[in-house]
Each structure stands twice: as structure tokens, then as C-alpha cells.
């Protein structure tokens, strides 16, 4: 099976500035990898590169079997990125935001309710414009959109930030479910105590490169489910 992420000496630019300077990283389908490192190490750039949002100028960069140096459009359809800023429209309700994401991806809107329920955005919360929600609730709406889209590669940039303890547990469950269903999960974190137990591996970045790698705390046996059952499982 092709790895979900395969980077070899990958150099990527953010505008005119180098964001990654020769990254080597492979993430298998069904694997959870956490990226650690200080501010400016290149964690966010790595996730944005894998989403096809940064230009790879040299090296090898394949995500979900697609060469990022060619056309990243197909990759973008199959990845889900939750960045620092949630991709939400303040004036739209939680349900409308998730429905927009689902319809944009040409997926059945029947997924919307299930995803919102999974994240606890029910009743009044689903009808509230997201501009009036708290930071943690907005994060849950963005996660609901991700759950509804069921991407093949989850890219989560510091997903624990701004979440209460219950939502952090829910996030851990979602990561585990996504990986069990065959999706790869790559996420960054400043909180190793929270993040490493969720992951099969942790990689440490420094200066736009992968500087080290350790085993994580996740039990590998849980990831042995074929990708074909993933969409039905998550939906």
C-alpha cells in the first residue's frame, strides 16, 4: 500500500521564504504521527505542505499517491486541514458551515447531522452563528466539518489548543477512529504529554527539518482495518 505521506529531502516555500528545508518523513495509512518542536521549527509549514498549500520546489513530495510538485488539486480534495484559524464563516450557523463544507466536497448532506451530533453541536448550538460561539465551540464545528468530510489524511495543527478536557477526550477518540478506519493522521502539538500517547510515532522538527523520531504511545494493533470501510465507519 502507498504511504499517505512520502517526503524525501522536500523543500517548500511560503511565498518567497523557505518553510521546509529538506524534510524526510513517511506516514502510512492508518498511522498517527505527532510533530513536535519549538515555534518556528516548521510544524505548520509541514502540515500546509502536505495539504498542497505550499509550493514544493525540490525533493520528493507525494501525498495520497499524488505528486505535490505537479497539481495539488486532487490532494486537497482528500485531505482535511484544521489550522490555527478555523475555516468558518462567522455569520453562518454551525450547521450551515458544516453543510457548506460537505456540499463543496460533493458529499451527501446526510453526513452533516451525524457529524454535528458526534461533536455535541446539537440543539441551539447547531443553529447559532459561529461568530457567537466560544473558541472551543468553533473548534468543535471545524472538527465536525472534518468528520463529515472523512478525509484520507487528517492534518491537525495544534488541535488541543483552546479545548476543554471533555473535547480533548473527544478529539482523542476522533483521531483513533480516523486511524482505525484507515486514514492517516498527522498533527502538531506543543503538549507532548497529551499528544504522544495518541500517536504511533512522534517526530521532532527543528529549522524546517525532521531532527528526530520516537515511538508514541498508541497501540499499533488498532490500526489494522482496511481503508475501504473507512467512509461508512466515520459517517
Amino acid at each position, binding site marked *: 500500500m502507498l504511504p499517505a505521506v512520502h517526503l524525501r529531502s522536500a523543500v517548500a516555500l511560503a511565498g518567497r521564504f523557505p518553510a521546509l528545508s529538506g524534510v524526510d518523513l513517511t506516514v502510512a495509512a492508518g498511522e498517527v504521527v505527532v510533530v513536535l518542536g519549538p515555534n518556528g521549527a516548521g510544524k505548520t509549514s509541514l502540515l500546509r505542505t502536505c495539504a498542497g498549500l505550499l509550493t514544493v520546489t525540490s525533493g520528493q513530495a507525494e501525498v495520497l499517491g499524488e505528486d505535490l510538485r505537479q497539481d495539488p488539486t486532487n490532494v486537497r480534495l482528500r485531505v482535511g486541514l484544521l489550522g490555527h*484559524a478555523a475555516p468558518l*464563516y462567522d455569520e*453562518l450557523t454551525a450547521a450551515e458551515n458544516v453543510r457548506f463544507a460537505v456540499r*463543496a466536497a*460533493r458529499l451527501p448532506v446526510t453526513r452533516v447531522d451525524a457529524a454535528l451530533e458526534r461533536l455535541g453541536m446539537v440543539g441551539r448550538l447547531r443553529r447559532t452563528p459561529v461568530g457567537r460561539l466560544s473558541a472551543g465551540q468553533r473548534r468543535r464545528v471545524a472538527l465536525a466539518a472534518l468528520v463529515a468530510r472523512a478525509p484520507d489524511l487528517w492534518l491537525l495543527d495544534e488541535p488541543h489548543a483552546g479545548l476543554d478536557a471533555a473535547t480533548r477526550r473527544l478529539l482523542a477518540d476522533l483521531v483513533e477512529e480516523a486511524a482505525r478506519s484507515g486514514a492517516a493522521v498527522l498533527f502538531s502539538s506543543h503538549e507532548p504529554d497529551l499528544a504522544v500517547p495518541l500517536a504511533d510515532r512522534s517526530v521532532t522538527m527543528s529549522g524546517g527539518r525532521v531532527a528526530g523520531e520516537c515511538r508514541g504511545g498508541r497501540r499499533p494493533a488498532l490500526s489494522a482495518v482496511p481503508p475501504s470501510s473507512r467512509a461508512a465507519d466515520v459517517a
Partner: protein
Amino acid sequence: MWRDALLVAGKDLRIEARSRVALWQVLPFALLVLVLSAFALGPGPSTLRAAAPGLFWLAVLFSTVLATQRSFAIEAGEGTRDGLRLSGIDPAGVFLGKAAAVAVQLFVLQVVLWAGITVLFGVRLHVVWLAVVASLLATAGLAAAGVIYGALSAGLRVRETILPLLVLPILAPVLLAGSEAWSAALSGHVSTGVSWLRILAPFAVVYVVVGIVLYGPLQEAA
């Protein structure tokens, strides 16, 4: 592409209906342009009637800049900008959807301004269809060109100030042709008006086609 355009237009119009920026800011601004211009020209009814079409289109032109800025302010956040690129929506669909949403707002604005110049300047349209066709063509051109230049300036820190500088000179042919077509519609000179439609139609077609082709690279660059 058309399905994506409908999705984006629906989203933008829904956001506009909730935020009411067009209702409370763009519309009053356009009416102010009309009234202040009337003050500047003086109270002579014949002067006001002669200037009415030009003032009408000047107000529409300035409002186009505001409506375009608002359309891109919706996507100004890093999250929503990336979200749109990752959404799977065809960039041509984003362009057409955004242009359609701006066009709907501009067309509604023109209906109100039409009522405004009728009351304030005492003018009456003799050839209504000519004015309506001119408005439809001009609106398509204004919205398409506005959205292209809106996307061009979207990634810049000085986008609010650079957009009028970029887009107003480009829209000058619409100001000229729209004003002349409306003058003809007011005076009943159909053949003169139709000749000005021959400028508005290609302008709209060219900018819609350019937008469909170029919006993807512009979105990436922003």
C-alpha cells in the same frame, strides 16, 4: 462549475443578508453620492436631469468597489482563505459565485438608485427595456471585473486602498457606456442607446471569460 458557483453565491448572499453591510453601508453611501452630487450641481432642474445618468452610474461604480471589498473581506481570514482552496470548489465556480453575489447586490442597489433619481431629479425613463438591458450588461461587467481585481488585491496588506486605484480606471468604459445608454433611455433615442450596449456586452463577456480562466492562479497567489 455552475453548481459550485451557485453554492458560493448562496453562501455569500446569505452572509450578506445576515450582516446587512450592503443594506446599512453600501446603499446609504450610494444615495449620499447622488444627493451630494446634486448639491454640487445646484438646483437647476435641467442640469440635474442632464447629469442624472452620469451620477447614477458614478454611484454604482463607487458601490462596486465597496461591494467587492466586502466580498473579499468574507474570505480575509487565514482559515476561510485556506478552507476555500481546500474545499474542492472549482476556482472558476468561486469566481462566478462571487461575481453573481456582487451582481445581485448591485442590481438591487440600482433599483433603489433608479427610484432615487426619479424622486430627486424628476427624470422618467422613456425606454425601460433599454435601461434594464444596459443595467444587466453593465452589472455583469462591473461584478466580474470587480471580483478579478478584488482577488488580485486580496493578499495585499494595502488591499482596501489599492483596490479602488486598480479597478476604477478599468471600469471607466462602463461608466461612459452606461451613462450614455441611460441618457438614450431617458430621451427615447433607442438606436443611440443600442450602440452603447455594443460596448457594455463585450466588456462583460471579456471579464467573465478572463475571470473563469485566471481566478485559479489569482486565488493561489493571494
